């Protein structure tokens, strides 16, 4: 198992290098001229040249990349063009906030959606299953920015049940943060919950059709034992893989929700940085998110390996 994790982590290194090359290319090379990207269309060529020189963008590509990547590896992420603050600490603080929000959402999403999905799968074609299928489908089709807008108006403004801001006032105890995170987490939950529940349902239906479930039933095992001992574990394998890959969408949703709730997370920061053409901050955000995404897939793979001895032992 440790070897599997180790190998996967090691495999992440070349992927990460390629990701960094891609980000570097997308942010600094392909748009044509880094200085121009930052300064916009109105700067004179001289100003652009000066900035390019200052940024080292007039050097050969490989050298630029080496310097750029070197800085990332050594933690010298430079300063934000807009805020003047060090990129590293700025990104990390935002990342922490985002992780709190996403983690909070996931902690609720994962068990709930699996429960709902597996239940629907076990009661396949029943009225309840239909109801769950339809409601999960309708959840997945409402974009976060729609559900978010409506939720705020209903729960924060009209009913005053929940705070409209996603951050508690200064000095509030840490646990308060979760109270403030409920409202922003709901749009994220709705979307992912529906999707993961559908996957869990499909996984359950498929596993129920497997011969080994017939074996278990015909062994005379009680229903709960069949479900928890034989169905659940195997039904979760595709679900977990999906959760891993859904993290990408969760991040996308996070951007929207943070923007909507003015939450100081990495998504909101990215939008700000993108609007300002704050390239160093932008690059750092994308890279950090990519690493996060890869790690979450790795975790999903590890969970799958834990669920599936074949993969575990194969490692």
């Amino acid at each position, binding site marked *: 198992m440790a070897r599997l994790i180790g190998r996967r982590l090691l495999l992440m290194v070349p992927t990460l290098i390629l990701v960094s090359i891609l980000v570097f290319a997308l942010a600094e090379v392909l748009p044509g001229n880094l200085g121009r990207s930052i300064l916009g269309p109105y700067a004179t060529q001289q100003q652009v040249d000066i900035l390019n020189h200052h940024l080292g963008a007039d050097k050969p590509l490989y050298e630029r990349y080496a310097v750029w990547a070197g800085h990332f590896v050594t933690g010298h992420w430079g300063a934000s063009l807009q805020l003047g*603050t060090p990129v590293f600490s700025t990104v990390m603080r935002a990342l922490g906030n985002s992780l709190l929000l996403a983690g909070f959402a996931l902690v609720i999403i994962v068990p709930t959606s699996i429960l709902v999905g597996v239940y629907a799968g076990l009661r396949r074609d029943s009225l309840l299953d239909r109801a769950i299928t339809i409601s999960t489908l309708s959840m997945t089709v409402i974009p976060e920015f729609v559900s978010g807008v409506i939720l705020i108006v209903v729960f924060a403004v009209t009913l005053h049940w929940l705070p*409209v801001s996603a951050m508690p006032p200064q000095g509030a105890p840490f646990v308060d943060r979760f109270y403030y995170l409920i409202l922003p987490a709901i749009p994220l939950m709705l979307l992912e919950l529906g999707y993961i529940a559908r996957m869990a349902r499909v996984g359950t239906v498929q596993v129920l059709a497997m011969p080994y479930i017939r074996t278990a039933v015909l062994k005379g095992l009680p229903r709960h034992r069949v479900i928890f001992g034989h169905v659940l574990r195997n039904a979760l394998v595709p679900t977990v893989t999906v959760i891993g890959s859904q993290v990408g969408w969760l991040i996308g949703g996070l951007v929207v929700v943070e923007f909507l709730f003015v939450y100081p997370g990495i998504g909101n920061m990215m939008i700000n940085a993108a609007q300002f053409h704050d390239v160093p901050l932008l690059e750092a955000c994308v890279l950090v998110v990519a690493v996060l995404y890869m790690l979450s897939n790795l975790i999903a793979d590890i969970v799958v390996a834990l669920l599936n001895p074949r993969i575990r032992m194969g490692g």
Partner: protein
Amino acid sequence: MADEKFAREYGHHLVEEVLNGHMTRRQLLVRASVFGLSATAIAQLLAACGSSTSSSSSPSAAASGSALPAVVTGGTMKAVIPPPLKALDPVTIYDQGGIVLVYQIAEYLIDLTNQNALKPKLAVSWAPNAKGDVWTFKLRQGVTFNDGSPFEAADVVASIERVINPKSGSGALAALAGILSPGGTKAIDTHTVQFNLDKPFADFPYLVSASSYNTAILPRNYAGNFQKKAVGTGPWMLKSFVTNQHATLVKNPTYWGKDTQGRQLPYLDQLEFALVTDTSAANLQLQSGAVDVQPQTVFQGGASVLSDASLRVDVYPSTGIRELAFNVNKTPWQDKRVRQAVAYSLDRKAINQALYGGRSNLGYDTFWEPTVFPGSPTPPARAQDYTKAKQLLSDAGHASGVDVTLTVANYLENPAFAQLIQAQCKPAGINVKINEISYNAIYAGTNTTTPWLNAPSVIVEWGSRPTPGVYAQAMLLPTSAWSSSHWNDKDFVTTFNQYESTTDEATRTTLASKLSSIQQDETPIVVAFYISQLRTQKKNVYNIQGPGSFYFDVSQAYMTK
């Protein structure tokens, strides 16, 4: 003292002008304040004019009923403002968020009243010499910075010299260019400062008042790290500042200000600012009760805020505008007829209705607008006239129409304004392409690269300015720091210099007429309206002062319950 004598004489001159019908009483108030006339002196002047009423009651007081409840001290007030666009530094700020925050912590020599008249702050009095090129300011005694160091003339000298240093990057640099040069500021004694101007300048006090917001008085040793260590003489001290999130300020226990009954100001203990750009999010914060006050509520999209029974909305006429600037260096704006064609395409009433519910004062592309700057000559109105617009376009060689791009920030009512312009220009043959960018993007970069100063045409939101001259100084001169139009009209510049160097009101009125007609005819910018600003607060919030959205004076504000 000669200067005091001059002031007295100038006071008599003003009274005469009023009596002759050249000036309104309100104008007298404003003008008198420029020349450092004390409140008592002004009251005497008004009496001389035959006026008995005081018009100094604040609009907020008026809106909330004349009887204010008893002052309650202590408590925390939360306000929502847009975040500062760059690192917080009084020397370089230019946006609402930055200005509002600095205004709480640092103070100016002169502050503004609700009517845009000048009001002594760190300077207790000021007066020019007869020629108007030497101004002497008496400073307030017994003021200390919030780090304990005393406030003296040296701090003023340092602060002013700092912003007119060509390396400062300060907006005040341009405002004072040609008027005050490095070395022109001298400390006469610890509490007297003398400004030796390059030329006579009648409106000089405005240039070192809060309306010239980069001239905040900082300690002489200020090294440019305001965001971390905010030292000022103001009623508030910065406790924490998190970029794009929030700022918390606590009251300065050693603040020099006292109310009329001698109570220590400010009343409140703490002031919290939520830093939010998005109008919707800001409105929601207000409605959900997360914040107590929104210094600037946008009518567009503010319907639910305005109709919220738990909130009180102050409407105060401000001189703020949404400048539609044409970069006269860029095609097709070199030709004034194209600019005029746009001006004649606009249905200003309809725009006022859509954007402000008809609350704002219409403008006709000049700053000398008597409805907002009393005493200004009345410019000819510009109604929508497509025949004329088309004629102008065809004269300019664009008979078959012209394509233009309008850059606008996704902020406040600007996008809606842009769409109104677009729709109204279309019948005239002006095809406007809207380039909508974000609030932080439009102000990104330096003066030579930033979109708001370099785009071919652009909408820029301006907070209140106290006089037409200050506006012109800021954006219509070749030396202006914030000239989005890059307009350079010799006639205008010459006239403007005469205008600002004379103290004779009759001459000023004549010159104002000339300036106004040049500006309107040339139309470097369209000023379609002067905005009625909305400030929204919970019903238990009282006595917020200050004109416009920039000068958010809560030193005497308090909250009941």
